[in-house]
């Protein structure tokens, strides 16, 4: 009996035991390596990620901050001692004192290296694809890898050469990097499609020509990043002229008669845009370009009383003065690029009631007292006829109803200069109509390259190559004269590098071109509001400390940039 029992229990135990045996092979339930995608889904699935991080890269705190707040175009003080302190990183960025632990530098770097990697993954994956789009998609992925490397070279002074995902990237700098990026663009150029086929959101023929022009224009800087002067070679300038000519002659883009339409919510179809980040409110769009600068007490949308600005950066008074000096006795708003008034209350104080559909805040550079929808306890006031009530804004949300939302020219890091209302603000991009919080759901495409830049690059190459002031002046005035929706800016009569630099500021302010422009024109070591650092080593940013630490097991592989 006892023996039987033992046997029964032993057998039962063994059964349980065998039940429990396992090879410990991990079962993955929520991810796969073998998704059954159609050929089209497969290739689309490979190409889309190569572009997908662009909205993140073109954020207010990442690429925008690095390209603009480091220059005379934008400054972001510790607002009122309560906002945008961020451990001093914006103050450091403006004063060229950024450190390798700066989170925005790190975030920008991460978007770039990951995007480069996604391009490599796409190129590799497309090798076995049979879709008719394979060749085009491969060219786009390869071209985008070159583009991200070009941004990497511009910001950090290095580029990564990597074809086989299983190998370690080769890190290159200077001339080698310029040559590599150029050869990559040239390799894909014949395969790419015109903008009319793929749209401005993807790398197209005109886009790659634009980028080639930009690369060659800056090549002298990239080859000798810390140089006291740059050697703009004639052959480089010829290439700039060659590629800008190609864009202009291709007819793939046309100058926009309405300057601010280039930055409007429906700018995807604006003909001036050559290459842009295609933003969709329902997918990837952010509204940070429109949100960042305006006041937290500005509520630009009748539909969303929670959508506001944040009192971020303003323009420096130095930059403002370039407008003033250019226009002399005339107010700079004479220039249609400077300002667009959308609310009549600014000129007619009695217009205090606005239909919801007509309610739009002004665009361009905003100065002085701001008007807008009046918000009380989280809801907008209404006129008796149901229209939106607009009026003078004050800092209600900051518990300072006594302080008007009146932007001052003065902005700096002093207490007075750091108040919520200091600095003239920029509302270049239109505030997205779908942005319920003001932060996300952006609609406007973010411009990477547009035709005006092509003309101005050509003008610059003409000046730098042979001091062809007449040719340069013709290009600049062509762009000026094209803004015909309102009174176009007056034609200039002379042209030189300084005037061209000033013109680039007027045309491209806050379009993330200022830092390379200042370096190329030798202005980056100059002095402006709260910026005195003249160290040429600060032309490029530090490689993030985390990346340096991560590479510490390969001595000498990833070297920190000098001066950091």
């Amino acid at each position, binding site marked *: 009996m006892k023996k039987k029992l033992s046997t029964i229990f032993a057998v039962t135990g063994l059964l349980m035991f065998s039940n429990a045996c*396992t090879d410990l092979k991990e079962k993955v339930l*929520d991810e796969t390596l073998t998704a059954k995608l159609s050929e089209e889904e497969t290739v689309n699935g490979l190409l*889309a990620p190569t572009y997908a991080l662009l909205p993140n890269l073109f954020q207010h705190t990442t690429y925008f901050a690095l390209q603009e707040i480091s220059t005379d175009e934008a400054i972001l003080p510790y607002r009122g001692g309560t906002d945008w302190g961020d451990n*001093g990183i914006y103050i450091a960025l403006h004063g060229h004192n950024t450190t390798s632990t700066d989170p925005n530098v790190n975030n920008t770097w991460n978007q770039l290296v990951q995007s480069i990697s996604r391009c490599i993954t796409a190129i590799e994956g497309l090798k076995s694809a049979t879709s008719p789009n394979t060749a085009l998609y491969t060219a786009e992925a390869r071209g985008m890898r070159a583009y991200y490397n070009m941004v990497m070279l511009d910001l950090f002074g290095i580029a990564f050469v990597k074809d086989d995902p299983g190998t370690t990237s080769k890190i290159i700098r200077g001339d080698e990097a310029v040559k590599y990026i150029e050869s990559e663009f040239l390799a894909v150029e014949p395969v790419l499609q015109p903008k009319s086929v793929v749209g401005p959101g993807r790398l197209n023929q005109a886009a790659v020509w634009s980028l080639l022009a930009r690369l060659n224009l800056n090549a002298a800087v990239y080859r000798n990043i810390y140089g006291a002067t740059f050697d703009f070679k004639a052959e480089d300038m010829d290439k700039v002229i060659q590629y800008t000519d190609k864009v202009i002659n291709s007819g793939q883009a046309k100058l926009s008669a309405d300057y601010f339409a280039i930055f409007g919510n429906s700018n995807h179809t604006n003909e001036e845009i050559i290459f842009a980040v295609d933003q969709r409110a329902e997918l990837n769009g952010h509204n940070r370009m429109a949100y960042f600068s305006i006041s937290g007490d500005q509520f630009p949308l009748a539909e969303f*009383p929670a959508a506001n600005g944040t009192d971020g950066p303003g323009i420096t008074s130095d930059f403002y003065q370039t407008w003033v000096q250019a226009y002399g006795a005339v107010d700079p708003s004479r220039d249609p690029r400077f300002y667009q008034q959308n609310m009549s209350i600014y000129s007619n104080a009695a217009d205090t009631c606005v239909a919801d559909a007509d309610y739009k805040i002004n665009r361009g550079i905003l100065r002085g007292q701001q008007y807008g929808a009046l918000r009380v306890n989280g809801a907008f006031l209404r006129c008796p006829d149901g229209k939106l009530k607009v009026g003078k804004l004050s800092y209600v949300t900051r518990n300072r109803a006594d302080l008007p939302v009146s932007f001052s020219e003065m902005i700096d890091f002093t207490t007075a200069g750091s108040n919520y209302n200091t600095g003239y603000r920029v509302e270049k991009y239109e505030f997205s109509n779908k942005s319920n919080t003001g932060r996300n759901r952006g609609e406007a495409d973010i411009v990477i390259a547009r035709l005006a830049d092509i003309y101005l690059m050509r003008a610059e190459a003409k000046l730098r190559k042979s001091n062809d002031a007449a040719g340069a002046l013709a290009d600049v005035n062509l762009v000026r004269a094209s803004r015909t929706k309102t009174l176009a800016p007056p034609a200039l009569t002379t042209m030189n590098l300084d005037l061209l630099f000033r013109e680039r500021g007027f045309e491209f302010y806050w379009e993330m071109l200022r830092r390379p422009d200042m370096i190329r024109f030798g202005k980056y070591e100059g002095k402006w509001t709260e910026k005195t650092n003249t160290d040429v080593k600060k032309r490029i940013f530090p490689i993030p400390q985390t990346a340096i630490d*991560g590479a510490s097991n390969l001595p000498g592989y990833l070297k920190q940039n000098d001066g950091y």
Partner: protein
Amino acid sequence: MRNTSTLSVRTGIIRNCLMQVTAVCGLHAIAAAAIPVPEGQPRKHVETSMNKLQEVTLTGKVTTEGSSEGLPGVTVVISDVSGNNKQGATTNESGSFSFANLQTGQRYNLEFSYIGFEKQSLKDFLLTESNASSIVVKLKEAASNLSEVVVVGYGSATKKDITGSVKSLKSAEFNQGIINSPEQLLQGKVSGVNITSATGEPGGKTNITVRGPGGVRTGSTPLFVVDGMALDNSGTGGDTNPLNFLNPQDIESIDVLKDASATAIYGARGANGVILITTKKGKSGTAQVTYSGSLGISNVARPLDVLSGPEFLAEATKLGATITDGKANTDWQKEIFRTATTHNHNVSVGGGSDKMTYYASFGAQKQQGILKNSQQNRYTGRMNLSQKLFDDRVTLDFNLNATNTKNQRPNIQGAIGSALTINPTYAPYDANGQIAQYQDFTNPLFTLQQYKEELTTNRVLASISPSVKIIDGLIYKLNFGIDNSTATQDKQLLPSTIPAEIGRLENYGLRNTNRLIENYLTYNLNTKMHSLTALLGHSYQRIFIQSRNFSINKFPISDIEPIYNPGLGQDLSLALNQPGGFATINELQSFFGRASYGFKDRYLLTATLRIDGSSKFGSNNKYGSFPSFSAGWRISEEPFMKSSPFSELKLRAGWGSTGNQEIPSKITQARFTSVVSGTASYPLDGGTTYPAGTTYTRLANPNIQWEVSKQTDLGLDFGLFKGALSGEIDYFRKVSEKMLLEVIPADPVQPAGTFWTNVPDMQIINQGLELDLNYRNTLENGLRYSLGGNITFIKNRVEHSPYTVIPSGSAQGSGLTSATINGYINGEAIGSFYLKEFIGFDEKGISKFRDVDGNGIVNDADRVVAGTALPTRMYNFNGNVSFKGFDLSANFNGVAGNKVYDNTANSNFYKLKLSKGVNVTPEALESPEESVNNSAGVSTRYLKSGAYLRLNNLVLGYNLNTAKLGISRWVQTARISVTGQNLALWTKYNGYDPEVNNDRSIAGITSYGIDYLSYPKAKTVIFSINLGF
């Protein structure tokens, strides 16, 4: 002569104890005890039976040994020899008891039990007229814990035979008060164990580390094993403590395995210590029914001292601020906090026969939080059953625990942050009694009204463990358990017109199923010279976790809560409502063995080996071996020690290796997902549908393996003066290696930015000294007292990290974004504060910071290590006095050597804030030289001492004389008590509480010691009654 059978006693009313039973009774008992007989078996009495039957009253007296003073409050239970017709009584102030209407010539069994004393029984007492008042029982104080049974994992051992560092805590020693989860029962009670109950929220999380954190990531939590079932440490949904499913009143004992020689039996999960929880079991004999009920009244212990209305006006005016005077004087903290009540009811039944014992309980606790709208209701039911079969060769044990927890929480940080800063001259309600609305502030009452999170968790833990005695000494045991929890959480934001809010409902579902099958053999051999215990087993565990979440926006304003009708939502878009979720399976397979050998009861050796495999590890690293060795020498048993004052002196030494496999699943495999999301997809044409982007979610590391922790322990156990003074000293050194970390690859161009790896060479070293001391004494007059305490000195440091600094602890609050507070740096402790050093104000009253590198610019490069969040000293002391029916116990605990970062003050309390009409504490105004324009960046200015001493609990109890009250027929024992919880706190810290730890981790790197709008702790008074039937 002693009857030395060991049994556990459940007194129900009086707290529970596991004691050795000795019967040393009065005249009669001595005669009776002459023939030792196994308990529970009837036997012949030596005395001849009496001739005449009549009713008499049996009286007797209980005293303590060495004193003639009667001992009041002793539970005396009388029954007939078959255990029926049970009656109970309690001794009165003079130690006497009585039972009326007993029959002479009948045989009775009597049992005497009292907390802190060895239980005694008087079996087969033949009542005669002459001996009806003859019983005098001398209760002996329970000897030192030498023979105490300690649960060691896959078995138990007596304390004297243990060679590792193990601390056993019985229910009588637990912390008292409102207890949410088992860790709180042992806070301060075990040296080397740091328990931080970081929040005063009902059901909130507790941080616990044994002998210091051994990892950088989150996952330094010890392994919890409940009745042999190893729990999964991941959460069970929401932000609540996953262990709050256990009813503290069901817990018999908690054993903490501290050193590697003890934890190695749990292999790859032992590195952070193991906590074994044993629930109560029934005892054969008559049924014991107990009821306990309590009412707790809680208030916020230390509200922050923000300015009152008049002070606010006066101070703001001094700063030249333009502020709105709302003409009221509102204490906003009073408005959002409340006097909270907690009801607790618990009924248990335990008992059984020879073959079968059972314990069943039902508990209900309704706990209000001191913040309005925060509440936790918990219902627990437990059934433990044990049945012996086939001549006791087979034992079947069943455990079943079912818990339903409902946790409700408001927007805690929103409400507290707003209450601390809102203008105190504003009134909370308008003239119509409605919640007032303000332009510049959100009324915290509105915040509380508009948002809630509701979490309902159902958790069932069931196990069956049959064991078979194959031959004498050899037992085979199967342990099969399942732990299943399902949780649903709703987060609801109501729509409103003012302020405009469209409303949102989020729903989260979590399922966690943990299945365990273990088979093991235990062999026991005991001879005069040798003792051997051997264990060999196999274990398989499978943990399945699934989470899903959905949301919907835009609800009409109505009295229907979105929770009850999500279909009312009108906006569902990919941008705002992308569903999410994940599912993982983790499997563990282990082979383990242990051998303990004792020679002459003096020389003890233990060796353990566990081979653990986990599906989380790569194929070339599937299995790891975790050995340990330890030895003990009971010096007190040596002949040369016979005349020493040491009743116990044991030297222990051990070394072992354990692992930590608490890393995310799937990291050995690169996988991709194909999804339409903002960061994976992109419009490839002008259309409005977007292709799914295929991206790698992570890099593979097929070589990943567990972290290894090697620990050396040297200990000394001692007992002096017959055990009156006892204690333990332990030195330990724990070195964690092969640190698992999510790192950035050398080549930054990778599909994912990081990958998991074992960082070579990096070490985290914890070393320290633990000291436990206990003393107890009884005075001639019957007053008994005990004093105890422990202290831990611990030092933690990171070594050989290839990283300059691993940042953690992201600061929160306006203007503080992107600043980090903690840093992991070589040579410094985990959780060190790495900050700019505040050195005062410049001539303009603006903050100055030390320019460490002297380059004229103060930035991140000028940060310094400014202290650690980990205490270097933890201590506890407690005292207990009892006299007549009364008992009083107090329990203090404290920490020292640590700092706390007051992020609440950093983001709210500075002069500039007041000048903007934001309320502050007087701390903000204490530097007259500070400019009203000075901003407050993250720096040592807000780093404060975190040392404290807390009167954790104070209990005053009285055991009623049920006989005297005439209720002893129905109620055998009755005890009333008042407990004060968190009655006093001594600290320099001026936030809500220095025991704080807001999770501000960055990329899974644990943050430490940060206080940001934490839920404050309560001061609670609890009135309890315990009845035994």
